[in-house]
């Protein structure tokens, strides 16, 4: 069983992320880390490998050169191999351009299962798997709260707004895990030391058989036009409860016809 996990790097939760007003892109110069949602996809891949007793876990990342550290962290946590898709031509790629490049890298792997995390911790994007699956022409299931592999198929318990569905798909398949699926492990000291010896492949746009016009800004169909401050909510009322708070709330709601 070969599992490919798509990971990305996001600004540290503690770091104050910002959008560069000049380029209108996310400023990635601050402290960054492996996207915590992707760590859960990686965890699930490692558990599959441990359950089946053999197989390979490959971590794939499309990101600028400096994000290599986060990919090494995936190796330290337990991935067997890393593939870094890195090229200046990829800068500014939107969903479709990203899916195009990652799909080419995934095609080379011929993995039985492609796993992704629930969302990017930075852009709150939660759509890549479906675009990837369409390019790869593979079945896709998102919001997996649990998954099982048997007889060449994956069975997923999917969380939706209405509860839990059970969905089955033959392998190879693309599955995006929900943040309820597991608690990811931390890298061990041994893992960190061992990561340096693991295969780490770097691929450019040319290696993927793509033209530069198909990716990056040129291959994208969305753009950021401007930045603005969020709208303010206006005046607020403060009530210190002296036993009459309930009455005050009801009066407030009645005034605004909310009862």
């Amino acid at each position, binding site marked *: 069983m070969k599992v490919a996990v798509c990971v990305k790097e996001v600004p540290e939760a503690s770091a104050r992320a910002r959008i560069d007003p000049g380029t*209108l892109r996310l400023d990635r110069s601050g402290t960054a880390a492996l996207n915590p949602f992707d760590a859960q996809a990686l965890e699930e891949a490692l558990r599959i490998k441990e359950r089946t007793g053999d197989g390979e876990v490959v971590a794939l990342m499309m990101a600028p050169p400096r994000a290599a550290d986060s990919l090494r962290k995936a190796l330290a946590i337990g991935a067997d191999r890393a593939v870094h898709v890195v090229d200046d031509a990829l800068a500014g790629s939107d969903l479709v351009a990203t899916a195009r490049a990652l799909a080419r890298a995934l095609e080379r792997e011929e993995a039985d299962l492609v796993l992704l995390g629930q969302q990017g911790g930075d852009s709150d994007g939660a759509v890549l798997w*479906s675009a990837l*699956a369409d390019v790869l*022409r593979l079945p896709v299931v998102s919001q997996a709260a649990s998954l099982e592999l048997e007889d060449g198929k994956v069975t997923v318990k999917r*969380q939706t707004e209405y509860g839990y569905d059970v969905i089955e798909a033959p392998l190879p398949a693309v599955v995006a895990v929900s943040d309820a699926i597991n608690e990811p492990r931390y890298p061990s000291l041994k893992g960190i030391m061992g990561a340096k010896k693991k295969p780490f492949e770097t691929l450019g746009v040319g290696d993927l058989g793509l033209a530069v016009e198909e990716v990056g800004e040129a291959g994208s169909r969305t753009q950021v036009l401007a930045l603005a401050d969020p709208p303010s909510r206006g005046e607020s009322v403060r009530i210190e409860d002296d036993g009459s708070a309930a009455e005050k*709330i009801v009066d407030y709601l009645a005034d605004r016809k909310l009862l």
Partner: protein
Amino acid sequence: MATLVFLEDHEGELVKGSLGVLSKAAQLGDEVAAVVAGSGVEELGAQAGRYGAAKVFVAEDPVLGAPLPQPRVDVLAKVIADGGFDTVLFGASVLSADVAAGLAARLGAGLNWDLVDLELRDGQLVGKRPALQDSVFVDVGWTGKPRLALVRSGTFEPVESGGEAEVEKVAVELEDFSTKAVMVERAHAESEGPSIEDAEVIVAGGRGLGEPDKFALLEELAKALGGAVAATRAVVDAGWYPYATQVGQTGKTVAPKLYLACGISGAIQHKVGMQASGTIVAINKDPNAPIFEYADVGVVGDLHEIVPKLTELVRERRG
């Protein structure tokens, strides 16, 4: 602008979020068409006229009975190619987000997501998208057609305009890989009363409740107000309340007319999911709770005393 709106259905009804997007599309001008794709959905197609659709394409097929995205991508791709639509709008949900992203890849089209507004500026469609935990608002556009947009759930209210839609059945032709994923068990509704996404009033509880049984206080209040009960991630993780009620970055995004937050500190994870609510009332013991920074009414006090009184008063007022 030739706009197409994807209408999601659930248990014999069109989902409110997608009807809201349809109404918004109709307000932006020009004729708007819609797509309904499902099994036993022909009747639903006609209903879309009331919310501003001039034409509704109905794709009817047993395969579409399961709420899975890939066959719907096939349906939409064909309708767009045949009808020459240049703008395709979706109301966000687990299903619709997957449909929109798959369609973007299929058509090589631009998809902007998590939009909280759409407007025409000099004839160009512009979306507004909060970013970085809503600390900044970004105007986004498209550099090619069709333009795909996924609207944050609860953003637009459905408006009944009383029109009638011409219904056209479309042939369903599916890709081989689109039917490989199959649903073997369907979700069961976990709670009674309105789902939190459709509720006009939400009473939400967090850690400050102290223990799971105290959700009963909120259920009473929600019942008196005709609303639904929601929960924070912390208490859902702790197993106090079902996942389907979770509001926040990793749960649902809601925008009811009234959001009553009880014992919720209001961390960013939660704020993202409810800050678009009309009026926010927060009850918390801690005067420094972050939720007071964005509540319209901040009540510093013990919810265990205030909520039962509130329930009683609401019952009296509403008769």
